[in-house]
């Protein structure tokens, strides 16, 4: 008695699914299916990363060279500087009308992104006052690829967008969605993490992870002896902008005979402190390398608590590190992953609206803060919270400095 209804149900449902499946194939014409043209590009990139190694010598060499490249534009406004290269013609987008900008953001889940997001909103106010941008609609994916794809698709379908800004949550996964945005014919600006296509109007980013790794590992190698131990504190695996930092640094450490051991910390200071304390019990630690400076203070305090000499250290331009660095007087360097790129994206919209050509790949300067410059940056950013980034580049925007000091997230 029991089996027959089950069997019937199963057959019916299987048949229904089959019908549906058949139906779907027919209907796939009007779908935003990834077009065949996209395939070679994506598969090419997949081949390049097929060995799951992050280190690509050509990229390493390119970014190494870019560290000493000349940047076009005024040194006083580094967020508008770029390395000379191919430009995108934007005359067809020129308009007098205030634009509707749609921003698909990966997240604001760390202090670096929060600082940039605040700066971006103040830049938005300035551009709304000058009637360049009418409205910016933002969708925040909360660090989820799946959500961000849905966000971009929603913008395409319902957003009524004049310009797309996308800060991808991850590179390869977001590529098809960015391509769909490009197919709308509207300008698309990508910033921070990249995508495996060049359909965008402009891809805005500082030099990159390799440059970070080169700056920092060179600094540590110069200030340490061969055979010295460096503890590398990394946030999490699998994020390209972070992985390339470590890939470059690891190579340089190896070349210079530095004994480097790496840990994932999730930027949790108590975890950082535990790791360093244990390492100090095992033996001397001469250097600390970080792929992001968040939590750097705990690393230094671990040395203080153990009562041993402070290490040579690279952190980031986060205020907490700069302050602790000055207080302790350790030998250090603050590499920078230029936070001001968040305002560059909106300034790029302004240029597009005006029909000015913009760099297809807009490489922003990425200059570490050295000990000599530290005092200046500390003074300029006096009163900012610990999670603020010194090179945020918003000093000339409305609301400075109050908005950043209050850290009100829109």
């Amino acid at each position, binding site marked *: 008695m*029991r089996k027959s*209804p*089950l069997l019937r*149900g*199963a057959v019916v*449902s299987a048949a229904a*699914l089959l019908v*549906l*499946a058949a*139906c*779907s*194939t027919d*209907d*796939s014409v009007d*779908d*935003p*299916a*990834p077009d*065949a043209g996209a*395939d070679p590009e*994506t*598969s090419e990139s*997949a081949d390049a*990363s*097929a060995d*799951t190694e*992050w280190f690509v010598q050509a990229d390493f060499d390119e970014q190494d060279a870019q560290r000493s490249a000349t940047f076009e534009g005024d040194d006083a406004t580094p967020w508008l500087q770029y390395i000379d290269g191919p430009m995108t013609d934007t005359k067809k987008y020129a308009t007098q009308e205030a634009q509707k900008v749609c921003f698909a953001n990966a*997240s*604001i889940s760390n202090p670096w992104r929060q600082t940039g997001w605040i700066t971006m909103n103040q830049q938005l106010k300035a551009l709304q006052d000058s009637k360049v941008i009418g409205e910016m*609609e933002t*969708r*925040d994916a*909360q660090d*989820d*690829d*799946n*959500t961000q*794809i*849905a*966000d971009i*698709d*929603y913008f395409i*379908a*319902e957003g009524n967008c004049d310009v797309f800004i996308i800060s991808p*949550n*991850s*590179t*390869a*996964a977001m*590529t*098809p969605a960015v391509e769909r945005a490009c197919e709308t014919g509207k300008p698309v600006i990508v910033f921070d993490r990249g995508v495996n296509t060049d359909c965008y109007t402009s891809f805005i980013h500082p030099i990159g992870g390799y440059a970070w790794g080169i700056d920092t590992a060179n600094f540590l190698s110069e200030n340490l002896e061969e055979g010295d131990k460096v503890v590398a504190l990394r946030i*999490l*695996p*699998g*994020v*390209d902008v972070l*992985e390339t930092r470590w890939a470059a640094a690891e190579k340089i450490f190896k070349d210079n005979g530095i004994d480097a051991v790496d840990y*994932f910390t999730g930027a949790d200071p108590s975890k950082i402190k535990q790791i360093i304390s244990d390492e100090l019990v095992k033996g001397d630690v001469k250097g600390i390398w970080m792929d992001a400076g968040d939590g750097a203070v705990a690393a230094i305090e671990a040395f203080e608590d153990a009562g041993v000499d402070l290490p040579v250290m690279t952190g980031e331009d986060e205020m907490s590190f700069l302050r602790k660095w000055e207080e302790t007087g350790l030998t250090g360097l603050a590499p920078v992953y230029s936070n001001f790129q968040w305002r560059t994206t909106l300034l790029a919209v302004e240029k597009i609206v005006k029909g000015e050509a913009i760099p297809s790949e807009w490489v922003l300067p990425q200059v570490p803060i050295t000990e000599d410059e530290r005092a200046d940056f500390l003074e300029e950013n006096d009163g900012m919270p610990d999670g603020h980034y010194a090179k945020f580049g918003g000093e000339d925007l409305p609301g400075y400095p109050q908005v950043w000091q209050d850290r009100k*997230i*829109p």
Partner: protein
Amino acid sequence: MRSRLQHLTSTGIVVAVLVLSLVVGAILTAIEGRNFLSSGNIDAILTGCSILGLIAIGQTLVILVGSLDLSVPFVVSLTSVLAAGHMAGEPGNVVPAVLLALGIAAVIGLANGLVVSFLKVHGFVATLGMGLIISGYIGSNYQGSHGLAPRSFRLIDATQIGPVPLTFLIMLGCALLAILMLRRTRLGHHLYAVGGSPEVARLSGIRTSVPVVVAHVLCSVLAAVAGLLLLSRLSVGSPTIGSQGDYDLMSIAAVVLGGTLLAGGKGNIVGTLAGVAIFAVLDSVMGVMQVNPFLKDVIRGLVIVAAVAVYAGREIDRRPARFDRPTGLDAVLQETK
């Protein structure tokens, strides 16, 4: 408590909450100058339901037998990278890659089930540990996006029938099979029996380990299906995609929101789907209203607790379902009678 609601089962209430959230959602969306029923919005909501829905169906089965599965996010990630790696962009590899992913997931589920039922480790700990084990494996072997899904496989995500995405239909298909299993098979009845009271079930001659193991296997396999659909959507395998969605806690929340008892023994798939849909509608509305991402979490937290509170209090006064005269609505909804 015993008011006009008394004839509604908890599933009925969940569906009522869903209808309410749809109405409120439509109004709020309209206030923002958007159309709640536009194809783009429907697509977003249904897509939002698909992945979490699949995982929550599996989670329902596991919770029904009185266990939990916290390893689902890692199963999702693992199947996504494994399948992508084996497909490597070749259409001919799709079938073996899919079978491999499902097979591995089944083995993981089997291990979970065996640890829970034979080693007597609580599901919470067993699957937390399993999650850590898989997470270590993924972290050691995959450092970022991996492999590539061929176009034919990506079509699964890209295909729509009218406004309904194929992924959603796949999820519904899995839900239907799970409902049939619970309603029409001896195994399904044993699942409820073991979840309700392992001792009674054992005394009445049920081998209690079988439903527990099967539920865990099905849960992992459904998580693998979710991982495969995510692969189809992302076009590459991602070692973190499962954790990104917080699928462990959110799926449990959806199951409980859907009226299933966390202690096991009582609940159903339809309620779970309604719970998932409530989340999707909530996300859609908060997206349209551009709610601050931090506040989104606050609202989610409050909604989860408030929604469960609506019927959790009256659950206790309810007589066993079989003594009630079911309403027409319930007869449709309640597959557990």
